[in-house]
């Protein structure tokens, strides 16, 4: 069954929630069932932020996850909190520019990518989330890059559309890393 239960976690300001919304939007464009649940409240204001995204071929039971098939972490506390949530065989993508701890799990597929550094080298470190999403899309097939691009156009305000080609370049770099 096509079912992706994804958690993205890091600091507020790293584009955690935007990344989740983009995935959900792209999933919708693929006629999947989607849900997006952000953390809210004080944790968003400078603390840790996370979101849960489900992309499924069947009606989604719960948008609240207790485990996940894929996890993107962008800081140490997020790795500590969510590592145990990954299902065996699940995908863990860590921004190794920010996450200096090593995961303990041996039964998962680990991808360590210095995304913040690589995105800065490409001109904009705030695209680190996109870099990591590239890997996620490539490894899990949860959405296609084509629909991801459409999601960027769908979600970003018109004044930011000029940035999309650059973001897509970062996404492809992430896919190829």
């Amino acid at each position, binding site marked *: 069954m096509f079912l992706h239960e994804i958690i993205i976690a890091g600091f507020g300001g790293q584009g955690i929630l935007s990344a989740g919304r983009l995935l*959900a939007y792209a999933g919708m464009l693929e006629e999947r069932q*989607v*849900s*997006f649940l952000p953390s809210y*409240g004080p944790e968003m204001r400078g603390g840790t932020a996370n979101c849960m995204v489900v992309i499924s071929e069947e009606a*989604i039971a*719960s948008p609240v996850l*207790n485990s996940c098939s894929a996890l993107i972490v962008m800081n140490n506390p997020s790795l500590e909190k969510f590592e145990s949530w990954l299902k065996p065989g699940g995908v863990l993508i860590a921004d190794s520019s920010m996450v200096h701890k090593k995961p303990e799990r041996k039964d998962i597929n680990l991808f360590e990518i210095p995304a913040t550094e690589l995105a800065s080298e490409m001109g904009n470190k705030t695209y680190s989330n996109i870099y990591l999403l590239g890997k996620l899309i490539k490894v899990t097939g949860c959405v296609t890059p084509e629909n991801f691009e459409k999601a960027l156009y769908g979600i970003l305000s018109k004044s930011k559309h000029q940035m999309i080609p650059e973001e897509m370049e970062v996404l492809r770099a992430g896919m190829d890393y």
Partner: protein
Amino acid sequence: MGQKLLMKGNEVIAEAAIRAGCRHYFGYPITPQTEIMHYMAKRMPAVGGVFLQAESEVAAINMVYGAASTGHRVMTSSSSPGISLKQEGISYIAGAQLPAVIVNIMRGGPGLGGIQPSQSDYFQATKGGGHGDYHMVVLAPASVQELYELTVEAFNIADRYRIMTMILGDGVLGQMMEVVNFRDEEKIETFDKSWAANGHDNKREHNMITSIHLDPAVLEQWNIGLQNKYKLISQNEQRYELYNCDDAEIILVAYGSVARICKGVIREAAEQGIKLGLLRPITLFPFPTDAFDKVLDIPKAFLTVEMSSGQMVEDVRLTIEGRKPVYFVGRMGGMIPTVKDIMSKVKEIKEKHD
């Protein structure tokens, strides 16, 4: 065709209200429902409506009383502590028999509590948090699409019975995004509003909207009228979903976002060879007693799951009247019951009854 959008629950409530013809919104911000206000602030002026951030929740609910008195569709929204502040106004609106819609996106209590999702205002919503013998109609959506459908319906029910209707959600529902399919055009039902105090131009007797009746005989008659209305609503407006109940060993009873978690539990249990069903009340008042009549003979037991210490479970027990065992599992304070929490209770019940 309609319009398919990925939207946040809170925003869908606001958009649905506008589509249903609501042109007056009065509120005061509080997490986790503030996006309703944001959306109203942006959209209301564009549709020629009134958005007003009141100086307090108490002011907002009394503005609702005023706008409703003129026969216009009006809404307010808040979260648990703010809803407590509005209780006096709610009682007055019930007493004056005014149609209005109120949204409670619940968070953990008591007191200021926290901001994470909860269902601990069930008693307050269904049994009357204010004084007097009154009820609101209470609707409990479980998805973003249902937030749309039921918000529109809340306005129709309010007008049909001249009653306050509450949308009772929680932080999960308010904050989550799902796909919503909006109809191209909303069919707005119209109702007789000849009771409204909207100016009589000396052409008719003036209408009086009040909740004060100092003669006890008159007040009793007024109350009998209210009770008759609640009976009629109980007959006509019960809504529920029965899911997987046909040969269930245990039927879970849950509403709102917890019902969604229960659907996940049902799938997981099926993989382990355990047959579970779900009875999901969509109206909490009127409580869907008809649904229990339909499935009473099927399971060995009922298990109520809530984000509270066990509030709706009291209505489940009152409805079942000891004819089947009723169990409870829940979390409090903003903690969400996990699949594991519920499954371990299911196994405990199974051991007892197998």
